[in-house]
């Protein structure tokens, strides 16, 4: 069930009515309805995977109770919880990749065998709810958090449908206490929620989904595309992935606000960053902070020697790459960013090399765009060819992929994001703008969305992760 689908609209309207018609001081029922709706939402893709999310929830729920109640066994219990979660992730997401890679490697050193490509369907959102469950168990282990005693509350936390399949990856410390409290309808928050949803729909359906066919076309013809087309393709992919992913996060935040919850911010205008460190503080914030808290800091963080720090950065970024998908392209993408990040914080930032803001922004944006080639390419060979083409003037300067609708969508995006770059999201007009002007703008944007959005119900890119 996609946020940008008619069926979701019907689902949410019915759920919203039931959810807020629960009697006051009936927290149990409010959570029960929330849990049921979340399972219906998730089961809509494939009801069989409900057992998977139930197992993940049950393991971390019981594990956390065990850790808290039996402190002397907390290490083995945490180990079991990690084993179950990472085992599920390894099987569904990485088994095919590792088996085929191993067989190819063995073939290359002389062991002749037929390479087997395992066909294991990837349950939608598995990386997100696994990381959410893991952080809960680890936080309880570290005594940063008290274990939940109510299975309904905990299961609702893991399966909370607005952010279940593509984040933000919520920490139990933020979301669980909200689930444990009665929610009351808040007019201002609900209004802000609707604005977030509108802006998310515009970014997804008017920008990302309009860029998508052009990007697909350029990448599928990357061997013959001209230099300008290759740059245009990677620029549009940068826009597409940002709009696609941040739109989901913003719609998730908006839906949560309508239900009385506040989710963490996942994007903070990353393309306006003026260095690579700032970019990573603004891009997919929930995952970046997750890696920082549960991998980078336990590895020693930045309070280590230069070489060890570089190694830590490489480890974190390689895992981040692998988290996105089982493919060498994601590993290459992670490694590429590790080098950029490492070079920046170990040398450039330390030596306090100052560069003009505009140059910093341009260079950061340029580096990020080049990195997206690895992310989008079908395989490492295509990525190599594409990058080579980006720097080959002999490819020529022809251009076949520009149309008015696309340019209009890009202009709309840049205008609002730049104008409100100091606000919480692109359509956050603040209180300075009078209501008639705000309403006129919303009416105009809603109409533009109706006329020019792509209504093909395209899935979000991050569902694949």
């Amino acid at each position, binding site marked *: 069930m996609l946020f940008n689908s008619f069926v979701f609209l019907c689902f949410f309207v019915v759920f919203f009515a039931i959810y*807020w018609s629960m009697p006051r001081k009936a927290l149990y029922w409010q959570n029960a309805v929330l849990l049921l709706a979340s399972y219906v939402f998730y089961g809509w893709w494939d009801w069989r995977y409900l057992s998977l999310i139930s197992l993940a929830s049950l393991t971390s729920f019981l594990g956390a109770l065990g850790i808290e109640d039996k402190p002397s066994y907390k290490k083995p219990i945490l180990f079991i919880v990690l084993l179950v979660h990472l085992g599920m992730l390894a099987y569904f997401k990485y088994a095919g990749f590792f088996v085929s890679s191993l067989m190819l490697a063995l073939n290359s050193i002389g062991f002749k065998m037929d390479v087997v490509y395992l066909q294991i369907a990837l349950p939608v959102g598995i990386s997100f709810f696994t990381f959410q469950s893991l952080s809960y168990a680890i936080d309880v282990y570290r005594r940063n958090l008290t274990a939940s005693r109510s299975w309904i509350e905990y299961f609702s936390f893991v399966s909370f449908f607005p952010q279940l399949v593509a984040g933000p990856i919520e920490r139990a410390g933020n979301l669980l206490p909200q689930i444990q409290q009665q929610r009351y309808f808040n007019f201002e928050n609900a209004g802000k929620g609707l604005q977030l949803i509108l802006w998310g729909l515009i970014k997804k359906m008017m920008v990302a989904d309009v860029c998508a066919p052009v990007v697909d076309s350029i990448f599928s013809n990357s061997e013959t595309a001209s230099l300008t087309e290759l740059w245009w393709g990677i620029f549009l992919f940068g826009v597409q992935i940002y709009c696609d992913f941040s739109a989901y996060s913003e719609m998730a935040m908006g839906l949560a606000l309508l239900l009385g919850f506040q989710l963490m911010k996942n994007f903070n205008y990353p393309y306006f960053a003026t260095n690579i460190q700032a970019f990573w503080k603004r891009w997919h914030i929930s995952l970046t902070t997750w890696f920082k808290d549960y991998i980078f800091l336990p590895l020693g963080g930045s309070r280590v020697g230069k070489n060890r720090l570089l190694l830590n950065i490489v480890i974190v970024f390689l895992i981040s790459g692998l988290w996105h998908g089982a493919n060498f392209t994601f590993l290459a993408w992670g490694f590429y960013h590790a080098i950029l990040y490492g070079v920046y914080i170990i040398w450039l930032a330390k030596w306090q090399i100052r560069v003009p803001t505009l140059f910093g922004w341009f260079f950061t944006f340029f580096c990020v765009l080049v990195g997206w080639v690895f992310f989008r390419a079908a395989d490492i060979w295509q990525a190599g060819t594409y990058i080579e083409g980006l720097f080959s003037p002999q490819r020529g300067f022809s251009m076949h992929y520009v149309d008015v609708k696309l340019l209009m969508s890009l202009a709309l995006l840049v205008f609002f994001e730049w104008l409100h770059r100091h606000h919480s999201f692109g359509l956050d007009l603040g209180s300075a703008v009078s209501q008639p002007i705000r309403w006129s703008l919303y009416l105009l944007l809603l*109409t533009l969305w109706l*006329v020019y959005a792509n209504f093909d119900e395209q899935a979000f890119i991050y569902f694949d992760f």
Partner: protein
Amino acid sequence: MRRFLIKVGFFVILWLFLIGTAIFFSHLWVKRQKFTNANTEGNLLIMPKGNGVDYLVLGISHGRNLSRRSHHQLFESVFNATMVNLAQGESLGGIENQHLYLRTFYEKGNKTNDLILVLSPSLMFNADTDQSDIMLYREPLELSMMRRLIDMGNDRKWHQLFFYIKSKLGHHWWMLKPDNKTHFDGVLTAIDGDAMKEGFQLAYPNGLDLKTFQNRCQELNQLVNTAEANGAKLTFVIPPAAFGYWPGHGAVLAHLKRQYPGRRVLDHSEAVMGNAFYYDHHHLNTEGMKKYLALLYGGMVRKD
């Protein structure tokens, strides 16, 4: 909560009102143009009410080409008769689509003596032509058209309805203008094997799939029933192409002869040969049309 619901409700009503107003004015704006059957492919813009016409043409772009530019006047002068052309180009005119227009034609109280169904063989192997969401983007909004669209058995009908309504706000509709050019002067320079292969891939997305063909035959039968129930005399025409026979030509011809005995079937696949008569591989230019209309007329008269 009540305040929220009232505000949201008011906002939605205001939005719908504004959209309705915009659609109303767009309708007036577009209608003020002088559209004729020869200068637009928006059929509802020109469809008569309570009229009798001598010939009604249905089909895809090859049928539409009988009216494009000055071809419509040529047809009427060669046949010395009136003609309404409801065929749809731009890959929008499938059999269901044409049946929809035929029903509209009759429900508006019109009559025709002869129905010419330009049956390009690709039409019988391609279900996609009826699946296009933008099928009605050139048509003014009419409630009766919406009803007929919903009555269609098409899987995409709700999408098509949605796009039909929202297209009235888009710039394509506001900027709809008559195409008043009079000639197709372009000439096909040579038969290009690669371009043809590419074209066939688009025209036959499932190849010569038997299941698709059978489904299209059923849809064709429904269309034929509607036409004959309203007293139209049917003529099937397989249109000419610079390359001669389309893939699946034999199967289509055999089906027409077997299924519809007694009806006119004109196989004009090779009736006009020579690149000079085409502006692409299968669309006649104005010179080609002059030659072809004489042949078509001769064929119809002779069969009578």
